[in-house]
């Protein structure tokens, strides 16, 4: 996208805000603050693509990680499941899976947009403590966030219709739900037979023209791909053009931030980064918003440790990087008698939320939902590689089965809770560095037993549902511990108490008055498996508070 006509700010004169990261949160903050009249420099480590750059090229997107940061050795992220072990460079893909580039992971996501509910914000009070975890209430309620969920609905562009268990909403969806696909019909049929309730999946994809943007053409290349139509409601499609049009936002793509520098006052004085030509630069700013995602945000704060902040910035609580939550997941695959052709259209059109709330009678903490979708089997190469039933995986019979099943197959995908634990965290790898020379991100993660039990339970319900819908054949892999994921939550949690949280309820860090943090890291609990709607709502809300503070000269 063109940056030719955009405003340019000198490095040595303080802009009102530097925002680090241009994804689901950063893209919204850039739009809100720049259209609010503040000068903004938006730093993004990945490239500035535009809609016409997005292809249907599976080999490039999945085999070469075109949209997800390239091959692992570029980032050299490391992983371990226990703090006693030496973390290893992940050879298959980085454990913190995200999309560098303007718009961030909102460019390649599947765009399932569940709101949280009242219970997500005060569940600790309702259920009581869970030993060995940092399970806590949020310092804000659903009512506090509802106006901003509605803002996401209308400004980002969400289609859907209210479901039987949804929390209240102040305004209807701006667009009707997507037409139900065969997978959605079968989910609905199976759910009904079991006394469950399938509802329309809310999606950040336009089902009708909205805000001057064209609607979905049902090409089916959503999951992992960028949308060449601009119908997928990424911040690239919905927010970045408005930020640029404000004349107050300079987007600098290909710029990898490596340090936030604090001055004599203890406040952040400048943001240091490596520009696309490999030069070290420093942008002065009145205030900084870090919105780099739940893995890169704590990494930057920890990598910015200095004499005055030996444990990293904003880390007097020791909570920077802690309480990482990935959401738990499970899958069930099934084939049916007639053609579904589920490769057309958006991923999901129906979801079941009957098990959203935790029920002590089940014997473990946790809740979640499950939807029906083609999953990664919507596109031919990924279908062939990952969508086949167990058994012989080559030869004539394999080929025939593969040829038959493509049009007859669907997947149930479970998204569910993760508990906050000290042992699951983002730290700095002591050995490895990324291609920019920044010490690598190290993830330590082992799912809580309750998270695994809950995902297994929901997977077992999914198996019953496809049976009840008339599946001819079904198969699944057992739910096991995860070694990474795209949902990066909880690592700079918000709270009133500076001893047990990193940011206050207005997203200002407890320790540094001109440092704000807003992304998945702000979340206190994980929700039920689709966090981006909440990340975006938090960003709209944070922008209101940050703008008010700036106007009052309190940054």
């Amino acid at each position: 996208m063109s940056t030719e006509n955009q405003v340019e700010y000198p490095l040595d004169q303080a802009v009102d805000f530097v925002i680090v990261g241009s994804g689901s949160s950063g893209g919204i903050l850039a739009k809100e603050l720049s259209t609010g009249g503040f000068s903004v420099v938006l730093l993004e480590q990945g490239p500035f693509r535009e809609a016409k750059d997005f292809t249907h090229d599976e080999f490039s997107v999945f085999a070469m990680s075109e949209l997800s940061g390239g091959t692992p050795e570029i980032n050299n992220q490391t992983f371990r499941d226990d703090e006693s072990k030496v973390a290893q460079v992940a050879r298959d893909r980085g454990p913190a899976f995200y999309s560098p580039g303007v718009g961030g992971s909102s460019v390649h996501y599947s765009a399932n947009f569940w709101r949280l509910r009242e219970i997500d914000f005060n569940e600790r009070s309702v259920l009581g403590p869970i030993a060995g975890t940092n399970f806590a209430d949020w310092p804000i309620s659903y009512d506090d966030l509802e106006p901003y969920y509605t803002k996401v609905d209308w400004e980002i562009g969400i289609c859907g219709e209210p479901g039987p268990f949804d929390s209240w909403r102040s305004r209807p969806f701006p667009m009707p739900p997507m037409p139900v696909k065969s997978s959605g019909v079968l989910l609905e049929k199976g759910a009904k037979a079991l006394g469950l309730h399938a509802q329309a999946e809310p999606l950040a994809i336009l089902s009708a023209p909205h805000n001057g943007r064209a609607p979905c053409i049902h090409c089916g290349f959503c999951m992992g791909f960028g949308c060449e139509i601009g119908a997928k409601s990424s911040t690239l499609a919905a927010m970045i053009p408005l930020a640029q049009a404000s004349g107050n936002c300079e987007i600098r793509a290909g710029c990898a931030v490596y340090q936030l520098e604090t001055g004599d006052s203890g406040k952040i004085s400048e943001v240091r980064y490596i520009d696309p030509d490999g030069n070290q630069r420093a942008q002065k700013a009145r205030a900084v918003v870090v919105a780099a995602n739940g893995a890169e945000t704590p990494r930057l704060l920890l990598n910015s440790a200095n004499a005055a902040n030996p444990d990293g910035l904003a880390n007097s609580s020791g909570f920077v990087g802690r309480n990482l939550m990935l959401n738990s997941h499970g899958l069930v695959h099934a084939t049916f008698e007639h053609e579904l052709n589920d490769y057309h259209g958006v991923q999901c059109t129906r979801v079941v939320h009957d098990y959203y709330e935790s029920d002590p009678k089940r014997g473990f903490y946790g809740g979640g939902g499950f939807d029906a979708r083609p999953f990664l089997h919507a596109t031919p190469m990924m279908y062939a590689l990952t969508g086949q039933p167990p058994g012989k995986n080559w030869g004539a019979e394999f080929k025939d089965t593969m040829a038959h099943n493509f049009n007859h197959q669907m997947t149930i995908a479970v998204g569910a809770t993760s508990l906050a634990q000290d042992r699951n965290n983002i730290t700095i790898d002591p050995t490895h560095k990324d291609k920019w020379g920044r010490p690598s991100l190290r993830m330590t993660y082992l799912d809580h037993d309750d998270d695994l039990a809950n995902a297994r339970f929901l997977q077992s319900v999914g198996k019953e549902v496809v049976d009840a819908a008339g599946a001819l054949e079904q198969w699944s892999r057992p739910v096991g511990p995860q070694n990474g994921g795209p949902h990066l939550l909880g690592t700079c949690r918000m709270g009133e108490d500076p001893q047990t949280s990193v940011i206050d309820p207005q997203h200002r860090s407890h320790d540094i008055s001109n440092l704000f943090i807003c992304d998945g890291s702000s979340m206190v609990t994980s929700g039920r498996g689709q966090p981006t709607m909440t990340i975006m709502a938090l960003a709209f809300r944070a922008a209101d508070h940050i703008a008010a503070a700036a106007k009052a000269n309190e940054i």
Partner: protein
Amino acid sequence: MKRDQVTRRRFIGGSGVLAGSSLLRISAPAALAFAETACTARNEGAEFKTLTAAEGRELDALSARILPTTDTPGAREAGVVYFFDTVLGDQFADQLNGFRGMMNEFQAGIESRFAGAETFSDLSESDQDAYLTDNEQTPFFGMLRAFTLMGFFTMSKYGGNKDNIGWKLIGFDGHGAAQPPFGYYDAQYMQGEQDEH
């Protein structure tokens, strides 16, 4: 998105066999990329740019057992060997030596098992299948299988999937705009809704 489903190395087989691959960036507009797919698959018998003729013969025979020619086309008709030739010379060029090493090792066992044969393509189809079965658990097999599937199903600009044979085989006619209903069950559902009104 369940991440373990999209891992390149995992679906390719042996752990770490393909570490260090170069990064490919496709910046052509989508429409151009689609247009290219119709005309870039190479003709059968074309020369290889990366593989030797002997390697090409072997990989053609090998990929043809992963996806055999039956009453429907297989890897051979889709020109999958040209996918090997393309990506081992470009996106996976740093894996070429490792791949060759594994293939040599694979071939080295043929002579002792099948008297009079030196290469995989020398064997009868049933002997080929028997030998491949013996090697199912090797990293070479994992890579061979993954490359065959990728070459058969990914865009023909990477050398395979000639005339979109792979897509036709499974009934994929996507890439463009589509209008619901897409399948049997949603068509029925729409019909039911209309009947109610």
